[in-house]
């Protein structure tokens, strides 16, 4: 027996079978990767990156399943007994991997329901980030301080998800407090002018000023301004600075929390009398 002859161990037919299987795998995987890339690019360009991601996954996983079936055919493994056994194996696997299965099913629901898409900005239990991908087991986010967050699909299905970029316009609510002595009508005029001049605010829906409350130290107003959703953060950043600047120019007081003491008669301040220091008090202090 020749030790170095492969046909001493395997029949010629088996070697051919192995070569065929290897060829199928070696050829189909790069082809599938190419097709996935093409589908992703095509659908991203034509529709949105969300659909690009979905198309890529559909192409890749369908191709992998077809490849496995072909390989099994080459190896002479029949699918029928496998499928019959799948029920029993499925039950066993199901018990063993409850969490993973739950995540996979949740992922399917997420794809069907579409509460968010790739590139949307979402808030999941206080974690805010841009959706990078919606995968079989989890959703991947990139936070604004550039951290990678993996959230299991099951968690997303169970928790409240806020999609910050679903609608094209978004409102910013600025809490504006002014002193009681200020003329509210004038304050309203100034705020509307600030909104009109701000480069990110929209003329319509019109900005609104809601008289929120008589606060402990101030009159509190809720100033509501709209911006395109992708410029909301710029609106937030600029308009408050502009309000402060205009209030300073117009002499409008933004009060800090304070307490006024009255001596019983409304609006009359507590009288304070300055007493001149006498020699005796001076000497007392000096001691």
């Amino acid at each position, binding site marked *: 027996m020749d030790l170095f002859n492969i046909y001493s161990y395997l029949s010629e037919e088996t070697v051919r079978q192995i070569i065929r299987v290897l060829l199928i795998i070696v050829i189909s995987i790069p082809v599938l990767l190419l097709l996935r890339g093409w589908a992703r690019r095509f659908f991203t360009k034509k529709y949105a990156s969300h659909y690009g991601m979905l198309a890529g996954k559909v192409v890749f996983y369908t191709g992998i399943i077809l490849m496995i079936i072909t390989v099994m055919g080459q190896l002479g493994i029949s699918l029928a007994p496998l499928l019959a056994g799948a029920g029993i194996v499925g039950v066993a696997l199901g018990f063993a991997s409850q969490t993973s299965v739950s995540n996979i099913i949740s992922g399917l629901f997420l794809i069907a329901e579409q509460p968010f898409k790739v590139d949307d900005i979402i808030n999941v239990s206080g974690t805010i980030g841009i959706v990078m991908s919606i995968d079989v087991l989890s959703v991947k986010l990139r936070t604004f301080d550039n951290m990678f967050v993996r959230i299991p699909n099951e968690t997303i299905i169970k928790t409240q998800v806020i999609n910050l970029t679903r*609608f*094209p*316009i978004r*409102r910013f609510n600025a809490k504006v407090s002014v002193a009681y002595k200020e003329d509210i009508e004038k304050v309203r005029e100034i705020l509307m002018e600030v909104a*009109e001049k701000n480069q990110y*605010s*929209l*003329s*319509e*829906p019109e900005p*609104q000023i*809601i008289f929120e409350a008589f606060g402990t130290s101030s009159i509190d107003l809720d100033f*509501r301004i*709209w911006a*395109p959703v992708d410029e909301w953060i710029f609106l937030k950043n600029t308009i408050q600075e502009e309000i402060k600047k205009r209030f300073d120019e117009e002499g409008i007081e933004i009060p800090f929390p304070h307490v006024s003491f009255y001596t019983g008669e409304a609006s009359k301040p507590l009288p304070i009398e300055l007493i001149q220091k006498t020699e005796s008090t001076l000497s007392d202090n000096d001691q």
Partner: protein
Amino acid sequence: MEHDIWGRRSLAEGQLEYMSIGDLHLWIKYRNEEVWISHAYKDELTRKPASDEPPKQVEWARWAHKNSSAEVTVSPVYPDKPLVVHSEFNLKVSPETRIQIFTRIPIWIRISLANNNYQLIELPAVKLSRTWFGTFTEGELCYHASTKARRDLSHVDKKSYLVSCPIRIVNKSEEELTFSNFCFRVERLSMYLHDNELWADETEIIYQGEDLHSEVIMTGKLPDGITKKQLLTKPRKKVHKSLATRTFKRFFKDTVLVDR
């Protein structure tokens, strides 16, 4: 005269070209095979700028191009988004009535390389605020403008940064149309220069009722005395004969009522 700015302009090496239209001040120069452009708006400047040197706070932008050319074309163009035009006074159009009004809207200035029309920059002559036309969940970003919706422009002062647009409104519905604001889609209009004034071809808006989209037709009809030879700028988008679109109706509810 401001209207002289339209057309080709040769730039001498290192020499500064200055132009002003509306609220916009522009400086252009050609230096080291690059086109340099800087601009500023009236509200950004404390005093009238000098034509031979831009103010220090103004920044330059530079363009290097494979076919470097010292010739640029300056042309007027329509804004890059539709305009929501508010009428100063409401105009009520009775059923089965056809009227013509004129609205004047601020132009944009486009600077491109003369030899291959490569676009360098587009700037509005007057800064316009933006507005939303549609609902809270869908719609489009537009510019906000106002109009006197005049029936005749013969006694109105000429302004080089405004283009006069004739609009024919046809109320085909059985209800009265209150013309207070409308979405003016200018991207399919051409611009003509006549008697030092900029003019647009006619837009016809057929109102068919509050619940139906209005039909907007670019008739291509030119105002009296203007010919096709006076064409200055082609439309931004390919002209379709007509389009059905939301033009008059907006759907905003009072947010105070719906958002407590």
